[in-house]
């Protein structure tokens, strides 16, 4: 008997309501005091194609998925056997082979599956889904409308599953009713009824008691948070005081913007759906210049359109925007709904020329919050665009966390011009630029940029390179701004001295930023300082790496994990020290080429030869990383990991 540790999976055609089913289950487990990690795999398709949702439940923290499923619910045949029989190029093998020995398969008795000759060693539970729905409807006199309520198969699936693991149905009922409020409460009752009938049916028709998995709530269940990355990103934006969010619909970034759109009225936030991402970024830049905290969210193809606007924000020293860039499989349209960490090098080099920007990659929900919150501060303090890069997995997977630390709540708006406080600072750059006679490229008065000027200059040189910004409309704070190279007035210049001084002014912000960002937000060495293997990785693989290390640790293996978070400015020296101390290094990335590895080699000269890479559009499983780390402990080279499940 295994208590409070199992993986439950529901699979079916898209549009069949598996999301709702899995999310209700995940939430009920979380409310029961258990910890959940739930991830969805789906096609870029509205209806019909195969999708599945996997919910891993445990008493301890879980941050990744395991390959074996203990309870599999199949709403269609394809979920069990894959699509090789009816597609020229089969895309998956179904999930029957993933069921653990002793595990169970609940399937819709109507799908034409005969388990008599199927895989032995597991239990099969054919359930008449439609009959149960019909019965539930008959109770309210709607028996003949069963086909209209076909989507309720998802609650039948849920009720059946709970019967197997003896989970109290009341907890699930509470979650379901919570989702159908007001006018829809009748539908909620209907769903609860169907779930209850399914629960009873399984208890009566099968020997559920012999099923070896149990889920039981803790005596004092603690309501933890069960959240997806995009929700936390949105909440961080709200807490950071973001006034303005722009977006153009794109998977998997849209959810964040729609979530924010829903909060507009309550939180005085303006969300604008734009005509494309070029518009999104440029509206956000215009808004930042006008004095608000502005943001946008996109994914690779949208980011590809935004790049010109990012260079524009950088050269005009706009105090933002904050861009949350959700990675997915590329290139081009690539794998729109699948996982990849393939955009790091792109996001590091988005536009032409040299310019400063900040790139940070959170690894879990807490870091999503911290990084997005901080991003707004950095954008205004250093007057540049800041890019936070999660990925599809982080955006869409549910993870239980105890609470969200809102301690990163200090708002820093940077230097601003308020009229009276303006005192120009003469810096060497200014004197140089003004004094060499090249500055007035188009004929305006050279020498203005020097000391003693009493008027406000938006791009004035200063000791730290940051000029106070003025909010348009401020009396005496008038300024010009241009995407051309410019002088302290903000007028175009092609003068060599001014060009050099302005390049330094902008680029010198990078070391300043590096100093300002707390070290543990830049990188973090998880685990023992002394280890036989040091894993190097970034972003959402964090949880999987930690879960894999934890299991190997129990077997006595000493592995630690260097998590890189701040990608630009990159903490090269400190990372180099850690890398050079390591006995053995292995890179873990969900992309083809090892893009963090390339950054590390560029920045530190260290070549990480052992690489564990995956680019099939599916995140690493805990099992895959355990196997890969075991190999890496003894051998060297590139391991290309390909999903064997799902």
């Amino acid at each position, binding site marked *: 008997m295994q208590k409070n540790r199992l993986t439950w999976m529901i699979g079916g055609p898209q549009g069949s309501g598996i999301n709702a089913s899995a999310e209700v289950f995940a939430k009920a487990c*979380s409310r029961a005091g258990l910890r959940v990690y739930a991830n969805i795999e789906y096609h870029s398709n509205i209806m019909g194609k195969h999708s599945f949702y996997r919910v891993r439940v445990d008493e301890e923290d879980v941050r990744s998925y395991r390959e074996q499923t203990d309870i599999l619910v199949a709403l269609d045949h394809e979920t069990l056997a894959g699509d090789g029989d009816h597609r020229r190029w089969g895309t998956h093998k179904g999930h029957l082979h993933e069921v653990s020995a002793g595990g169970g398969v609940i399937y819709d008795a109507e799908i034409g599956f005969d388990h008599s000759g199927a895989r032995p060693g597991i239990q099969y539970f054919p359930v008449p889904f439609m009959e149960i729905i019909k019965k539930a409807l008959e109770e309210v006199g709607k028996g003949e409308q069963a086909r209209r309520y076909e989507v309720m198969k998802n609650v039948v699936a849920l009720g059946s599953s709970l019967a197997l693991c003896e989970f109290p149905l009341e907890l699930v009922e509470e979650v379901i009713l919570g989702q159908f409020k007001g006018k829809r409460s009748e539908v909620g009752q209907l769903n609860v009824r169907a779930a209850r009938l399914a629960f009873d049916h399984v208890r009566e028709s099968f020997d559920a008691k012999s099923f070896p998995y149990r889920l039981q709530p803790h005596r004092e269940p603690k309501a*933890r*948070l*069960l*959240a997806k990355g995009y*929700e936390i990103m949105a*909440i961080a934006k*709200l*807490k950071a*005081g973001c006034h*303005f969010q*722009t977006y153009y619909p794109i998977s998997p970034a849209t959810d964040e913007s729609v979530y924010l759109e829903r*909060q*507009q*009225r309550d*939180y*005085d*936030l*303006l969300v*604008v759906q*734009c*005509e494309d991402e*070029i*518009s*999104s*970024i*440029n*509206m956000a*830049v*215009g*808004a*930042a*210049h*006008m*004095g*608000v*905290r*502005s943001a946008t969210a996109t994914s690779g193809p949208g980011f590809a359109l935004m790049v*010109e*606007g990012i260079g*524009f924000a950088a050269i005009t020293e706009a105090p933002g925007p904050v861009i949350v860039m959700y990675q997915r499989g590329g290139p081009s349209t690539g794998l729109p709904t699948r996982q990849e960490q393939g955009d790091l090098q792109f996001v590091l080099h988005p536009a032409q020329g040299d310019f400063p920007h900040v790139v940070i990659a959170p690894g879990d929900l807490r870091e999503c919050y911290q990084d997005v919150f901080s991003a707004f501060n950095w954008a205004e303090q250093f007057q540049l665009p800041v890019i936070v890069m999660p990925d599809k997995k982080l955006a869409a997977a549910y993870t239980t966390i105890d609470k*969200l630390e*809102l301690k990163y709540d200090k708002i820093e708006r940077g230097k601003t011009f308020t009229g009276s406080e303006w005192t120009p600072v003469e810096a060497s750059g200014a004197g140089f630029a003004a004094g060499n006679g090249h500055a007035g490229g*188009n*004929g305006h*008065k050279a020498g203005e940029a020097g000391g003693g000027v009493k008027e406000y200059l938006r791009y004035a040189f200063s000791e730290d390179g940051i000029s106070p910004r003025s*909010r*348009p*409309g401020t*009396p005496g*704070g*008038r*300024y*010009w*701004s*241009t*995407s*051309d190279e410019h002088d302290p007035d903000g*007028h*175009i210049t092609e003068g060599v001295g001014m060009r050099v001084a302005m390049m330094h002014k902008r680029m010198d912000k990078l070391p300043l930023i590096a100093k300002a960002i707390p070290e543990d937000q830049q990188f973090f060495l998880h685990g023992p300082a002394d280890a036989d293997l040091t894993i190097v990785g970034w972003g959402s693989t964090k949880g999987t790496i930690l879960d894999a290390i934890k299991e190997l640790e129990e077997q006595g293996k000493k592995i630690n994990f260097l998590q890189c978070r701040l990608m630009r400015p990159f903490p090269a020296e400190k990372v180099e020290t850690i890398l050079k101390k390591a006995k053995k290094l292995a890179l873990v990335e969900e992309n083809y080429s090892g893009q963090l590895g390339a950054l590390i080699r560029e920045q530190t000269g260290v070549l990480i030869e052992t690489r564990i890479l995956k680019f099939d559009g599916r995140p690493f499983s805990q099992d895959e990383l355990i196997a890969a780390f075991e190999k890496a402990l003894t051998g060297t080279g590139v391991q290309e990991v390909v999903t064997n499940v799902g």
Partner: protein
Amino acid sequence: MSVSAPVKFTLKDYKSDLHNDWCPGCGDFGILTGIQMALANLGLDPDKVAVFSGIGCSGKTPHYIKAYGFHTLHGRVLPVATGGRLVNSGVTVIALGGDGDGYGIGAGYFVNTGRRNLDFTYLVHNNNVYGLTKGQASPTLSKGKKTKSMPEQAIQDGINPIAMAVAAGYTFIARAYALEPKYLAGIIARAIQHKGSAVVDVLQTCPTYNDLYTKEWYEGADLPEKKSRLYKLEEQGFDGKVKDPTDKQEIIAKKAAAVARSYEAEPIPIGVYYEIELPTYEDAVNQRIPALAEKPLVELDTFKRDVTPLLEAMR
């Protein structure tokens, strides 16, 4: 936007001291003067005006105006100005750019900005060529035309900006001529005062590259009667203003009349083609976020938000 103004600013209050590097005789000078005259006539405080531009010769315009000036990207002036306008409604926003900028690379934004009916003004410097890159055909040059700067005749046809503006939903659509700055200033002032998206297509000469549509051509110097190739709509009794914005028939009729006039090639009508008062994007936003009706977004305190209800929903 509506403006009540004690007249305390003069033309020179809107002139920056930056040396101007446009070619001698450039139509941009007329447009610059037109904008400055309009601002002076309306008595707008230079600290409460923001001028946004695209890229090209016209893109330099904000640098010559004493006001907040944003010289943005090629074709992207409308999104940048839209973002600026939406968050800081206390500032009068004027966007401007060339015909390539607005009707070519930025055509998508031209259309979608019309859909929004944002309360701001957009001026297009329409001289039929890409000046700063030395005279290639712009989207308004007709098929078969060839300026001295072009190696071959234009192979594709020109677009009709007025008709496009009508279709896109601009609520104030006008055309003026750069070398008649006083008339132009009057049109720009009306555009600024109009509540909603106003677009003014400004016919402009490019003495360096466009030898077809020159000052002399517009003035009709080559015509036997030496009669201008421009005429003012209002002088022919044309009135593009919709009297009853709820009257769909009137709207259709006025739009159709505007489009019909926009196809007149010689003489070319200038003046206001179409005008209607409709709820703006800001009006709609203010309904959703009532605090915005009180003050601009930039002035709202968004830093004390309580997200507890959102976190509670995750339990």
